[in-house]
């Protein structure tokens, strides 16, 4: 593991998101450290997915700025966020229908191809070699996420839910991101699958990729994350190491409610 450098990888400063008149996120400050597994938690409707959408460019915040790896990235198009090194998965798995696992993963490598139309049509060597290199990388990543080469030619959406989640992670990883953002990666999984995906997240981090994780299963969050940000009503309720944050009475009240 690399020694964590002092400047955070991604810094969100005073992010505010309004939909119509409603404030979904209010003045959120958040810093994701290099090589961190950072958890973003909070009760239903607290604005977690909105924050993740801001961090990946899907939503432009009404106010605030984003600094990624030392550069301001607010206002860029979604594909630019991906090109800078922010890769994500979706809460409801969004694999491309009608594509095989291999092809789906290769879409994630889009930015790493550059051949023009003519060299593609004439099958120039450079184009073929780039394709081959990425196919090899895709197989490596499928192996890394715990899927064998034998699933590569299956249509991705016909796999089991847990396997689809792994394909989605492989698809995100092939772009060689610096930060992987996972929106409820454990939802709908059984206990065994959950701990396997948690292990996978640790391995991703071991490769020097920071992870931001939205998750509801607090047992896993407690064990997996080394930093938590708690959202409630779109605002930051707590921020710090998991045990400290989860013991905070304000956090417990946000989850369980407080008696009148």
């Amino acid at each position, binding site marked *: 593991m690399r020694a964590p450098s002092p400047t955070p990888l991604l810094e969100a400063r005073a992010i505010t998101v309004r939909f119509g008149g*409603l404030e979904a996120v209010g003045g959120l400050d958040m810093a994701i450290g290099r090589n961190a597994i950072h958890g973003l938690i909070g*009760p*239903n*409707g607290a604005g977690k997915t909105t924050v993740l959408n801001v961090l990946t460019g899907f939503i432009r915040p009404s106010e605030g700025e984003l600094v990624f790896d030392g550069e301001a990235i607010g206002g860029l198009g979604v594909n630019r966020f991906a090109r800078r090194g922010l890769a994500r998965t979706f809460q409801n798995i969004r694999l491309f229908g009608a594509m095989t696992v291999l092809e789906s993963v290769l879409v994630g490598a889009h930015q790493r191809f550059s051949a023009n139309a003519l060299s593609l049509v004439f099958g120039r060597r450079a184009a073929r070699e780039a394709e081959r290199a990425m196919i090899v990388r895709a197989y490596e990543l499928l192996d890394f996420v715990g899927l064998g080469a034998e699933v590569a030619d299956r249509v991705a959406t016909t796999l*089991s*839910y847990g396997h689809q989640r792994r394909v989605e992670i492989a698809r995100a990883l092939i772009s060689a991101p610096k930060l992987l953002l996972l929106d*409820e990666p454990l*939802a*709908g999984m*059984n206990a065994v699958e959950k701990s396997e995906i948690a292990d996978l997240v640790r391995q991703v981090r071991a490769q020097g990729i920071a992870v931001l994780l939205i998750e*509801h*299963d*607090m*047992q*896993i*969050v*407690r*064990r997996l994350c080394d930093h938590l940000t708690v959202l409630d*009503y779109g605002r930051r309720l707590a921020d710090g190491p998991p045990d400290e944050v*989860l013991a905070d009475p304000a956090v*417990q009240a946000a*989850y*369980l*409610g*407080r*008696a*009148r």
Partner: protein
Amino acid sequence: MSPKSPIAPIVHPTGLIGHPDKAAPPLLKVENLAVSYGRIRAVDGIGLHVEPGRIVSLVGSNGAGKTTTLMALSGLLPLTAGKVAFAGEDITTLAPELRVARGIAHVPERRRVFAGMSVRENLVLGAYARGDAVDVASDVERMVALFPRLGERMGQMAGTLSGGEQQMLAIARGLMSRPSLLIMDEPTMGLAPQMIDLILDTVLEIRRQGMTVLLVEQNAVEAMRLSDHVYIMRLGRIVHEDSGANIDPERVKSFYLGADA
């Protein structure tokens, strides 16, 4: 680790209700309910007994399958397995709009009022399933009595109401069908504390008027305080149930925050 049988003995502190087998037949009886989204089993074989005149809560952390359960009960989602009986009638395959006519009203998550229509129109639509047009006006008056704030906003578009007012409207719209069972999905979500108090008081008032309430509530502390009976869900199953007063808050906390893992 917990009794999963839906006919486990229930001891209510008031002593009003004893063993469900001996009591009046349940208004809503759910057996082995399962619902899947594609390959994910969101609800995995649960049973519920809702007796008339009571408030029954489903609590549990996000993704436990509470909303899915409610949607299946009002017919919006097809069941993978299981049986639903309402007032002694098997309604497992009944169309959702006919369930409303039978007396089940569902106040959905995030309110879903008809934003482009006036408050009055929303209320009148609530009575759509009822054949009798005659009493609609007097029922609108009853709703105004229940929620005076709505009376001041009768002609206003529902989309311009505050979140709390929209929640009142959603509940009132549900009550307009004169249900015997009111299903409420997270009625306090995103509301300010005074508004939460008002809504929860309304839940008690609704029971006082003789209706039965099935409540999904994230605010577990409040849900336990209000309810005659509480089911705790986790990962699509019911992991614990008891009368509201008997549930150990620490145990609920462990389900939510995973402290005792």
